[in-house]
């Protein structure tokens, strides 16, 4: 088997995913500038964090002048699902060298996880060449388009005039809706929503984030569904 053709197959496989993620890289770049980052900082964040939703969460909180430790904690919280990914993917990539594992885990996004598991379960080898090709096809455009969005954001100036401020809440709402078939979805979301609005009103920003999240997570651990068939680490 040729690692060149595996790499090319990875590149091709990730292309449609990259195309659908592209607008969010541009959006992140523009929002980052609107919330006080420079283009270089936005690019650095896209390259080192490389997790779209958490980058948008981080930059949103930064715009609200939230304390740094809470921003890091929120980024950690949004990225928590990766723990389940890296646990589930372990059996397919145990043949990677340590360096390949480090690179591989940095490139572990939602689609990378889904495609790797699918490939592994279909009996094909999850070779490092394929994995790298897939990851590179997402990583390089992600960083490049962040820069493009940042430059665009600097040209525009006031984000309100072009309606950028409404995009993030709706984007996050769509992500919440994406979990709606999971066990306990409705009670968790209702409790988190109520707790966060009450905390926003009576405790103040940024505490609404941690208070709302803790309320929802605590509820999840004690719902009856928590012990029934909850082992499946799928999104």
């Amino acid at each position, binding site marked *: 088997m040729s690692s060149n053709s595996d790499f090319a197959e990875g590149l091709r496989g990730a292309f449609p995913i990259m195309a659908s993620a592209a607008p969010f890289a541009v959006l992140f770049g523009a929002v980052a500038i609107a919330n006080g*980052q*420079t283009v270089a900082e936005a690019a*650095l*964040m896209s390259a*080192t*964090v*490389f*997790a779209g939703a*958490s980058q948008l*969460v981080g930059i949103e909180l930064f715009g609200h002048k939230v304390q*740094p430790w809470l*921003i*890091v*904690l929120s980024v*950690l*919280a*949004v*990225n*928590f699902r990766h723990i*389940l990914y*890296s*646990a589930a993917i372990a059996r397919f990539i145990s043949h990677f060298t340590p360096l390949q*594992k480090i690179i591989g*885990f940095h490139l*572990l996004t939602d689609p990378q996880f889904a495609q790797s598991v699918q490939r592994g379960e279909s009996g094909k080898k999850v070779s490092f060449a394929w994995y790298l090709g897939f990851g590179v096809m997402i990583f390089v455009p992600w960083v490049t388009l962040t820069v493009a969005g940042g430059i665009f954001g600097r040209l525009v100036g006031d984000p309100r005039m*072009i*309606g950028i*401020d409404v*995009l993030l*809440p*709706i*984007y*996050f*709402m*769509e*992500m*919440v809706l994406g979990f709606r078939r999971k*066990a*306990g*979805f409705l009670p968790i979301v209702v409790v*988190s*929503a*109520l707790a*966060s*609005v009450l905390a*926003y009103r009576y405790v103040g*920003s940024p505490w*609404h984030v941690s208070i*709302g*999240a*803790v309320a*929802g*997570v*605590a*509820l*999840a*651990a004690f719902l009856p569904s*928590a*012990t029934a068939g*909850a082992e499946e680490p799928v999104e």
Partner: protein
Amino acid sequence: MSTFLNTDMVALILMCAVATFATRIGGYMLMARMKSIPPRLVAALNAVPAAVLTTLVAPAFYAGEIDIKIAMAVALVIGLRFSVMPMLLAGWCIVMVFRHLL
């Protein structure tokens, strides 16, 4: 642009990067140590993203002006049937109409 890279900002970004990498390697390390994860812990971990993201949506609706409230409500209805792009487009059109035409 006053500065290219601000030290505090770079430190914050790198801390976010370390936290993210920890989640990406954490499950692998965990699996190497124990064979299974307690179901309640899995349920709690599973709920973390939805719970966190909800705290960014609900107060934005609560604190938003009427244009944001209407845009988010319409986007929610659209989101029950369609994907993220139609939601964003509808919400964006509504706030742009409010801000530039009304």
